[in-house]
């Protein structure tokens, strides 16, 4: 029985390590990074995961050994311990140092990712979140929102590849989360605020937009797409959208 209990902990460690090891090839991992910051985010993520893995394997392995040893049927007296100041000091300083290092290491990347907040660049589009859909508003040729040449599309945000794209995020009702897993981009969208975020897509393709804040009953179906196209295609798309926006009703309704 005691062997079984201890084995349970060993199996837990082995199972977790195995699932992480096979995750990428089985498609359990994150989608391939497709933005300029994606690889840096992944490096940071992998580094932190490795640190946690060492701690996890150490702690649970040690626990398994304690279970094995502690359940021996002997008359050995239990050890009474009223604390060990040196041990506590060591683990406080070591973990503190690790956390501080992480905080410093990620600063540059964090500042890069948050740099749209202060920038005075005009956003390419406005993202309007609502229960339960994404709508995208483009400012048109004058690059100013809320003018006569704006146009809107639900669901699909089209952006040029290889360029820094700034978005303005707004919500009509509750807090939503603008999450593009392939871009490693996640920014909450707050009602009453016009927050900004940015990304630079590295490759042409279609990427999922999901909502990362539980926003109500339809949260799970609050889906959208980002379509990354070449600059020329983007310009052509924009002019065709503008033409369609000023339809006289004779083609599709």
């Amino acid at each position, binding site marked *: 029985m005691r062997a079984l209990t201890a084995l349970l902990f060993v199996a837990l460690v082995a199972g977790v390590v195995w699932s992480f090891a096979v995750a990428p090839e089985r498609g359990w991992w994150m989608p391939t990074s497709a933005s300029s910051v994606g690889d840096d985010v992944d490096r940071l993520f992998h580094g932190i995961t490795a640190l946690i893995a060492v701690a996890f394997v150490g702690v649970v392995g040690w626990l398994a050994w304690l279970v094995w040893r502690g359940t021996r049927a002997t008359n050995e007296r239990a050890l009474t311990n009223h604390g060990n100041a040196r041990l506590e000091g060591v683990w406080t300083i070591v973990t503190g140092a690790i956390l501080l290092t992480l905080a410093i290491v990620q600063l540059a990347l964090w500042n890069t990712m948050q740099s749209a907040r202060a920038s005075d660049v*005009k*956003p390419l589009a*406005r993202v309007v979140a*609502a*229960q*339960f*859909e994404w*709508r995208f508003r483009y*400012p048109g040729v004058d*690059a*100013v*929102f*809320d*003018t*006569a040449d*704006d*146009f*809107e599309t*639900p*669901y*699909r945000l089209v952006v040029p590849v290889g360029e820094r794209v700034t978005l*303005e995020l707004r919500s009509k009702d509750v807090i939503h989360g603008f999450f593009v897993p392939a871009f490693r981009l996640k920014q909450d969208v707050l009602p009453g605020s016009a927050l900004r975020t940015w990304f630079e897509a590295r490759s042409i393709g279609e990427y999922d937009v999901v909502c990362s804040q539980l926003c109500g*009953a*339809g949260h*799970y*179906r*609050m*889906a959208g797409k980002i379509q990354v196209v070449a600059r020329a295609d983007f310009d052509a798309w924009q002019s065709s959208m503008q033409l369609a*926006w*000023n*339809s*006289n*009703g*004779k083609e*599709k*309704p």
Partner: protein
Amino acid sequence: MHRNLDRLPGPARGVVSLLLVTLGSCGFDPTPGSLQFSLSKATIEATRDDLAARASIEHEITALFGTASDPRFTASDAWPSAAAADHSTSASIPDLVRSGRNYARECLACHGVEGGGDGPSAYGLNPKPRDFRNGIFKYTALKDQSRPRRLDILRTLEQGVAGTSMPNFQRLSSTEREGLAEYVRFLSVRGEVESVLVATWKEEGEINADTAHEAASIVWSRWLKSDSKLVVFDGDVPLSTPERIARGDALFHDGLKGNCLSCHGATGAGDGPAAWKIGVDGKREPAYLDAWGEPIRPRDLRDGVFRGGARPIDLYRRIYAGIPGGPMPALGEAQTKDGAPLVTPDEIWCLVHYVRSLSQRGEAP
């Protein structure tokens, strides 16, 4: 169960309706056969004292339209060909049975099994989900209060209805959406036939297969007229210029021309005197009810949220053809006393640009 909610005490009602709203739309996928078409409340009310008539109405409806697990439209051979006529990719639209299952997964939670706008999540939504059963659809590209074409329903599925709980459904494939539009049309025709049957029964005292078929062909003929009712504009859409906006401003406030201010108010805030009255409790309440019996408020045009679409042509169609089911009039069809058109198409464009300008503050981003 949700129909009995009103009997519960306040707090219990709150908890139960919260549960219903939370759980009601959890994307359940009912097994075929577990859903059943019921008669509408109005039919049940009308046949309260004649259960035999109720049974024969239900029998004829089922004969014409099948059951929820086996929906079909038997009354018209024209259905499949008319369905194929108004779009180009008819090849692989799911049939009514498959679309019925998609409807149960995607739409039923709000719109209900029969399209009565009474699904489990409908409680507490404002505006309420549309009840399709009277055949009235507010946002189409058509005039004369026509029944929608499939393309009109499809556009609502593609674009959603801004400012309401109706989202867009672009995450479904276009053929799935076409199938859903078809199913919505099916439910709508079914609901209309049901009310025609009740009216026929009231008039003639009985219902049989012949009267049912006649009712179905009367209803279906309304839907076949729609293709000739499209509102379009000859030529390019006039641009928004300060002159046109000023002209639109004048028309908006001209009681003999646009007369928009009577409902939408002088500032477009939706507070015009004609749209509101003082209720029995001394509070201001909407003066009009819509075709579904709900109080209807004029749109606050300063928000820039346009349910039927925000393109200029969408607003043009709203002003030209009115909005079925509510008091918004068809200005494009209105005439003066001597038979001349009340406003010209160009004047409608001026109104469109003026209305759009109310929400175009030109904020520097």
